[in-house]
């Protein structure tokens, strides 16, 4: 049994089923992200774990103990919110000490712990400041320290970075991950930003309409999305429709080109249409070695992003995005020119129609 166990969680608001049959086990020290579009129920799941919402059905266990009916203040969880939630009437040190005071930790121990926490978040000199004297990034750091100070069993983060500007967001997310690793604290992180989720998570749960569509390591989710939604939500995706020629041998055709799928036999009937997905980085401009599928293309747009050049090309009636690395001796192709693209059959992701 996992350290944090969510079993068949359901949440209904009025007639609105917001979370449907949601199950998840999080191991001790694991960093799991709930990823999905706005309104898909991420926050609701997190709030049920925190005890702010009572599940309509299902159960929540932390470290083997059933906490489903326990009140928030007895669950020993730490939480960080999207909105700045520091107590405005208290200094940074008092904010961090709050949970310890409530727990009845003696003063000397409390003060030592506050210093330790402020060092952990890299703000040892701001102890006597008030929240309104801090930047957004500093406030969220202090909020993290405050949540961690009483040594909670589980850390819950609800889009804690979304109010910050882009640069701070990236540096703080890495910092959160480092601190989480250092302390080995079991963590659930909610975000709608797939890049954020992929860059810091051990595991991602992609949610859609209150359902967990797929759970897995970022590498797994990105490279082997099981549903069309997951494939589309995580990263950019190029979709082709293909015709099944021989399901048993895994043969399909795209724009007259026959492709022998690496997976071999597929679950489809001959003559049926299926969806093929390809990541931008799996498609090459020109004929590349080890890319056995070659299709003619027209260049429609070129976006120079620095180390990467993203090209939009029309292939077999659809526009695909493909990424090439910048090389000084190889200028990008001119707009409107014809070219060939190629990809390996083993990179093809087959999705249910």
């Amino acid at each position, binding site marked *: 049994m996992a350290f944090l166990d969510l079993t068949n969680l359901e949440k209904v608001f009025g007639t609105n089923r917001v979370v449907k049959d949601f199950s998840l086990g999080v191991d001790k020290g694991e960093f799991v992200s709930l990823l999905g579009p706005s309104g898909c129920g991420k926050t609701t799941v997190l709030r049920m774990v*925190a005890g702010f919402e009572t599940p309509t059905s299902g159960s929540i266990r932390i470290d083997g103990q059933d906490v489903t009916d326990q009140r928030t*203040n007895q669950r020993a969880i*730490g939480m960080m919110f999207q909105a700045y939630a520091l107590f*405005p*009437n208290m200094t940074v040190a008092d904010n961090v000490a709050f949970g310890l005071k409530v727990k009845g930790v003696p003063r000397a121990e409390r003060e030592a712990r506050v210093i330790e926490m402020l060092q952990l978040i890299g703000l040892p000199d701001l102890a006597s400041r008030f929240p309104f004297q801090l930047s957004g990034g500093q406030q969220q750091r202090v909020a993290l320290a405050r*949540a961690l100070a009483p040594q909670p069993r589980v850390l819950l983060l609800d889009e804690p970075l979304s109010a910050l500007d882009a640069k701070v967001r990236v540096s703080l997310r890495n910092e959160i991950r480092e601190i989480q690793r250092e302390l080995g604290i079991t963590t659930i992180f909610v975000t709608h930003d797939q890049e954020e989720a992929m860059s810091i998570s051990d595991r991602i749960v992609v949610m859609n309409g209150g359902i967990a569509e797929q759970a897995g390591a970022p590498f797994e989710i990105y490279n082997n999305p099981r549903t069309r939604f997951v494939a589309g939500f995580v990263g950019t995706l190029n979709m082709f429709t293909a015709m099944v020629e021989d399901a048993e041998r895994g043969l399909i055709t795209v724009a007259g080109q026959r492709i022998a799928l690496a997976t071999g036999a597929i679950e489809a009937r001959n003559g049926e249409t299926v969806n093929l997905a390809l990541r931008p980085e799996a498609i090459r401009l020109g004929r590349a070695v080890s890319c056995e599928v070659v299709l003619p293309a027209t260049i429609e747009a070129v976006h120079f992003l620095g180390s990467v050049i993203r090209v939009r090309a029309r292939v077999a009636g659809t526009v695909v995005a493909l990424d090439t690395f910048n090389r000084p001796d190889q200028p990008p192709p001119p707009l409107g020119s014809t070219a060939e693209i190629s990809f390996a059959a083993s990179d093809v992701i087959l999705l249910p129609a």
Partner: protein
Amino acid sequence: MTRFFAWTAFLLGVLFFVLPLVGMTEFSLKMRRGEYSFDAYRRVFEDQRFWDTFSYSLILAGATIVFGVLLVVPTAYWVRLKLPQARPVIEFITLLPLVIPAIVIVFGYIRLYNTSSVLPLTGSALGTDFLLTMGYATLALPYMYRAVDTGLRTIDVATLTEAAQSLGAGWITILARIILPNVLVAVLSGAFLTLAIVIGEFTMAALLNRPAFGPFMQLLGANRAYEPPALAVIAFAITWGCMGLIQLVTRFSKHERAKV
């Protein structure tokens, strides 16, 4: 041109407000024939009844404020947190004391709690004091509730509550350590208004026959010439003193400056 009218209106307002004060102060200094003196003030301060009634009203004001804060802060907090749809109803209820005359309330009290009733509160001085305090709290309710509710609007009540809960705090801790400190200035302005109401209140104290400051002022006004304006000036000075104190407290609570 608009500036000119604005200034004119402002000056008229100031005159309307200040002139009676100046006149009253001037008159209060004229007790000794032909010269200005503080004789009227000395007479007031020498009167034992002034000190008795004033301290009585002060104590009741203190009790009213404590009761009002204990009633209003948790209520306004709870309504904001859990029953936002009930806010119009609560606001209406808190406004009722403004439209129901104090005399109606006090007659209601006397009918309900007289010596032959189930709860004969008017039978003892302490019981009557308690009734009077409740009456004062009712009169002060519109001001106290509005002040506290406005104070609560400046903080994110729901998120702060949840943050405190996640850190292990219960309701009492949340109210005492987070909500109350953050609405302290609002509570103080409510307390100040309560004090002003209680010190000047006449009807309830007179009908319940308690030795409060209001009935004393009335008594003095009916029998003397120079002392009543002196008393009014004193009351005014106390009021302005309270306002100064509120300013001072605001200045000292650092985090409050962020909101201004």
